[in-house]
């Protein structure tokens, strides 16, 4: 899975010269926490160049500092300050082809909540530096949704657990063959190692309201299964 598959592409953005009050309203209106800051690229192209990232935390901080300080430097109310003054430069970025695992690791290790997704586009004149074009945003929520989706949670289905003694995947393989034979669609299969490094069970999400025929075949083939809380 790569970032392109899970990133958010319908982006609400601000420009460096917008006021914090405008940014705060956007965050509140759309109920999220990250605003990419962009400026238009060279005339003719509509693709936005990434300038930085503004988070609701940055705004909270600016508001808090603004209300504490009465020096001349900061006497301007925080609402009137400009985005460019408080945004981060967002030097950590990923591209649409970055693997989701690598992006997840960056988020966790750096304690970030989101990463801008950019493509690098050479400028028109020779020798000019490439500019990062914003194409998406990857947030922790996107990763959680990707996890839920890969567990099959967005498709109607039921869950079945197949124990895999000693990490032996044969019962899982047999189950999948039987499901195919009985025309039962498999929405997802998860057999991730939870202990040591071998998977001890597989969790299947089956697109059926009527598992009885499959279960009967599993019993015939002496394959263990459970629904966990149904003894």
């Amino acid at each position, binding site marked *: 899975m790569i970032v392109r598959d899970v990133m958010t592409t319908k982006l609400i953005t601000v420009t460096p010269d917008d006021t914090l009050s405008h940014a705060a309203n956007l965050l509140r209106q759309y109920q999220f926490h990250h605003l990419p800051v962009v400026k238009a690229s060279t005339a003719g192209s509509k693709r936005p160049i990434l300038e930085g990232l503004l988070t609701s935390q940055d705004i909270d901080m600016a508001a808090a500092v603004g209300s504490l300080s009465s020096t001349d430097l900061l006497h301007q109310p925080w609402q009137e300050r400009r985005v460019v003054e408080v945004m981060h430069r967002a030097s950590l970025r990923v591209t649409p082809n970055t693997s989701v695992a690598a992006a997840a690791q960056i988020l966790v290790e750096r304690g970030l909540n989101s990463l801008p997704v950019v493509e690098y586009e050479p400028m028109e004149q020779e020798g000019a530096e490439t500019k990062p074009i914003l194409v998406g945003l990857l947030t922790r929520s996107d990763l959680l949704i990707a996890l839920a989706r890969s567990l099959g*949670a967005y498709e109607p289905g039921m*869950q079945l657990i197949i124990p895999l003694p000693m990490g032996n995947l044969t019962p899982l393989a047999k189950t999948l063959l039987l499901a195919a034979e009985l*025309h039962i669609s498999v929405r997802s299969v998860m057999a991730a190692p939870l202990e040591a490094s071998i998977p001890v069970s597989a969790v299947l*999400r089956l697109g059926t309201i009527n*598992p*009885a025929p499959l279960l009967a075949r599993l*019993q015939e083939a002496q394959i263990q299964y459970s*629904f966990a809380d*149904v*003894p």
Partner: protein
Amino acid sequence: MGDARARLAFDAGELSYDFGAEHPLQPRRLVALIDLLGTCGLWSRTNEQQALALRPATLEELSLVHTSDYIAAVQALSNAGVDEQGKDSKQLNQLALKYGFADGDTPVLPGMHEVTSRIVGGSLVALSAVMGLPEGGAFASEEVRPLHVFHPAGGLHHAWPNRASGFCIYNDIAVAIAHVLRASEAKVLYIDFDAHHGDGVQRSFYDEPRVMTISLHETGRYLFPGTGDVLELGRGLGRGYSINMPLEPFTEDDSYIEVMEALLSPLVVSFAPDVIVTQHGCDTHAWDPLTHLSLTMRGIQAQVKLAHQLAHTYCQGRWMALGGGGYDLYRVVPRAWSIVWAEMSEQSLPDALPEEWVDRWRPVWLSVEEQEQAAQQVMGKPPSPAVFPLQFQDRAQDFPAQPRRWEISSANRHTVGLVRHLLVPPSVRQAFPSLQRQSPLAGLFDLLHLQGSATPSRSKALETSAGTLLLRDFCPPSMLERLRPDAGLRAFARLPEREMQLLMSIAKRPDCALTIAHTPDGVIVGQVTIAPGDEWWEGLDNVYEVAIEVSSGWRAMGIGHDLLAFALELDALEDIILFAMGLSWHWDTEGLGMNVYRYRELIARLFASQGFVEYPTTEPNISMEPANVLLARIGKRVDSRVASRFLNRLLSSPNLSGL
């Protein structure tokens, strides 16, 4: 027969909804039902007072819910099944795969468009008849127009707008409801009693505040379709109108009945629907091969009775009942749906099933019995007794008690507590206390007035720009009876008369304090209730919830401020923790002409005047919506350990499992 204005809608054409001999859903169960009703003399299709003429739904009606590409695909697959397998078969296979017909659950059925349209039309006509809409047909007079209709072939609740799922092709329920939304101003309550979550109907109206969907089902942790969690609450304007009550496997009758009683009435009151649509899937029964809820006819009968009673109490009788799941085809379905019809038409059932009917259908059951037993066993259920019932009611000895009964019913109670906490507004919750909560208090009055005031109920005059108002706390029922509600007093029950009934129930409860503001000629214009914290706060003593309401015509005069101050003149004020939850979906922001954030500020300021402070919390209603707010006041003499337990609870995880 009773003179109930009830009809049963059935058309032999509906029996072609048949996926073949190996499929769990068999139309023969309807044949057995109709035969049973006929043999008992309860219904006859030739009796014009009992039957209802049906017609297929039009394409335009189907498209109220279903996408045009899906309808086109169903039509193509439906016709292709009849034709020779031609060169288009690859394309048809792709259609089948894309629209949910590729697996064994809902296989392509020749003519399926026509037969499903017929079933959809049946539910649409039935609901229109109940609502007095022209599509319901013409009746000699209003007196013979049905108030209740039962359409047993309907109830295809799993169909999505753009795919077939779980034996369902088109969603007759959603189309019928969507038709009512279009043709009238009515609000529709849908209650889904099927053992599987009513996902298709919920999905069709997930952002529609005119439809409340309530689904009681076996938890989706393992069972199809996997959805129906408590936290699926609706979206946008529809937030709070999707209610899900996932039940533990092996719930059984007693816990099921307790759950229904604790939830349904308060939800109906808070929604104030014009009509009730119920789906009576009887796969909840212990003998059903696909599920684990373990009900008997007693639980199913209680469910049907309650639906009937709700329709008469809250919807002037308007009620459409539908069939649904039910895969013990001959032992359960005919009896369960006879109970629906008998209840609806106010006819009594004999104790025994007619012998001739048993003689006709027991052999049919015997021929599939072995398969049924095998299915029970692979589903991890105890074997059901190999008997064909001879009575409408089940015999207790055929249903051995589940070993984990106590554990299962307390898990269900926790879920009920969470649903009530999240979805029932505070005043309604207090007027319909849940069974498990018996107040330990002798009376809230004594607790809040430790020094013992001279009079149990104080009063005070308040001058306002609209005249004098009288404030009164601990308002006794005898006094409330002499008053009447202002037309704008309807924040919680939506109708002033019902709001009044709520106040009456609250006044009667010793563990609630009701403070009201009324005009000298007896019109109630505002109220404050104080009651012990609900299930969310279980285990915390001295925590009370405050709710306030001022009638829409009496706002912006400072009445709220004075009424709240008066209600909180309590001896024990500094010994207790008070909190209030501001939930934006209860706010009449349109009537106030301000946005939710302004209103939020207003509420925070109103409560701040009495020493309340806003607290951040992970409580789901508050944390899901930034406009919502939790305000609390921790009394000065509250023990610091109690206060810190309260603060910990504010940030606890959003399910009740930690309790």
